[in-house]
């Protein structure tokens, strides 16, 4: 009379399917523990990790990733794309409203179209991080570069699609370039003294 199956279904007034698992289908640990552990029937492929940096020079790039050749190639590739992806303005005044005056110059796209726009101020380099290091040549093949532009408010922009009037084809990034000389350490953590931090 009180068949649990029936009760279970009629109790559910919403659209949830009660037979759907409420728990993870699989769980896995890749980094923790003594060995990589996978607790599931279907094993995932190792994730592809992409590391991206924003650099203002080949040197700072090389310092960060330890590979001068890849940085040089990235810089050259970014430079080649710069005029074709830069924000385009019809006057210097319009450009200077958004970008530093000294960066706003007359440029030509590879198709020969003239415009006023900011010069590239840095470059992005993304690399596929791979555990089985396939060597420098593969690293360079896997690297992707793009020019970076810096606006008047110290924000960094990257081309995000077809270039167009003004900043239309640009996406702001919240990346910060390079390295900084550390002046101090140890300024975080003191408030935790004598108490556990979690809740």
């Amino acid at each position, binding site marked *: 009379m009180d068949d649990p199956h029936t009760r279970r279904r009629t109790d559910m007034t919403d659209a949830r399917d009660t037979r759907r698992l409420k728990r993870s289908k699989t769980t896995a640990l890749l980094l923790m523990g003594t060995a990589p552990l996978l607790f599931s029937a279907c094993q995932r492929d190792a994730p592809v990790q992409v590391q991206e940096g924003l650099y203002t020079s080949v040197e700072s790039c090389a310092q960060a990733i330890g590979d001068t050749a890849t940085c040089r190639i990235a810089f050259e590739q970014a430079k080649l794309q710069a005029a074709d992806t830069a924000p385009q303005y019809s006057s210097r005044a319009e450009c200077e409203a958004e970008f530093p005056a000294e960066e706003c110059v007359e440029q030509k796209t590879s198709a020969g179209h003239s415009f006023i726009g900011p010069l590239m101020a840095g470059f992005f380099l993304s690399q596929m991080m791979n555990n089985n290091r396939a060597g420098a040549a593969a690293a360079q093949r896997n690297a992707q570069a793009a020019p970076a532009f810096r606006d008047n408010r110290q924000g960094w922009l990257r081309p995000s699609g077809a270039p167009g009037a003004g900043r239309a084809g640009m996406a702001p990034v919240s990346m910060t370039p390079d*390295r*900084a000389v550390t002046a101090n350490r140890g300024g975080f*953590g003191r408030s935790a003294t004598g108490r556990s*931090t979690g809740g």
Partner: protein
Amino acid sequence: MRRVGIVERGDWQAQAAECGFRFHTIDGARYWDERAYYAFTMAQIEHDLEDPSVELHRMAMALVDEIVASDALMQRLAIPAEFRDWIAESWRRREPHLYGRLDLAYDGTGPAKLYELNYDTPTSLFEAAFFQWQWLEDQRASGRLPREADQFNSIHEALVDRFAELAASLPPPLLFAAVRDSEEDQGTIAYLRDCAAQGGLYGEAIALEDIGLSEDGRFTDLDDVVIGSLFKLYPLEDLFHDDFGRALPRSGLRLIEPPWKALLSNKGLLPLLWERHRGHPNLLAAEFDDGGELPAGWVRKPLHSREGANIELHLADGRRLHSDGPYTGPCIRQAAHPLPSFDGHFPMVGSWIVGDTACGIGIREDDSPITRDSARFLPHAIVEDGAQVVFAA
């Protein structure tokens, strides 16, 4: 909801060691305790815990807009003046959040009551998301739980998915930081790094104390690389008060949890929720504390307190309970609603929200009605009442 004794897995310590779960025993006392579990029905899970969690989360998120627009509310929540604009800006940009935990008092009948929100540094994550899941699989396989037993716990999948969503928007490099000497916190960030890696987002770990500050006001790792994004298992309000805190607003550092979470991990949210949703079945009456005598039937809690510290409880029957701790400052009062007792054990249900999804629970029980850092973690299972009858049929 029942508390059911069950045989421990013979090899659980070995399993814990294998997956890096080191804090299962703390100072010689069990923290992970699988000598019993809590059994729920699906209706209890979905109607009494999952649905209210979704709603409470939505109500809390809806308050953020209002708080960031009001200096008076920021003041009530004791947010230091120099961080208010930065917090508001982080909300305007909708800087993404990872997770939070709602602490609920629930006895299997009637509405679960919200004790508080742990929306900044919720812990007990690994044991809830992963080790508890393992326990269920093992106990189903051993036949000690019915094959149909389930668990409200897709926390692991939700974390991996959430990190995958965050991957595109977090400025690299991403680092995970916790206090160096906390084994539990280090274990939690090890697990979160693992989930992030499974979501395609790789981040190194750094001790919070090793973070550097450059002359031009940016935060650096031990190689002087500027940190783009920092997951910190460390309370925002403590970051604010640390020596480097004042550099945060202009550093360009992206934080997880983001600065606006300081508004939700604050017990001042409880009276604000009550004022706006007075009588809501999942809320307890709450008000800001005037410092006066605590009447019977009320609990006093500091705006910032964790692990059940500095709680003053004046029960309706006149009994008073008090927990020590290091927290001071403004307080709130909340109507006393003692945790239910299951054979002298007092369980608190931690309901996990990853992104904006309610995706699982973890239960910590203590031998006193205040859940402290001495609480033990017990697994749970969804087992329908009368399920055996169905198997026999």
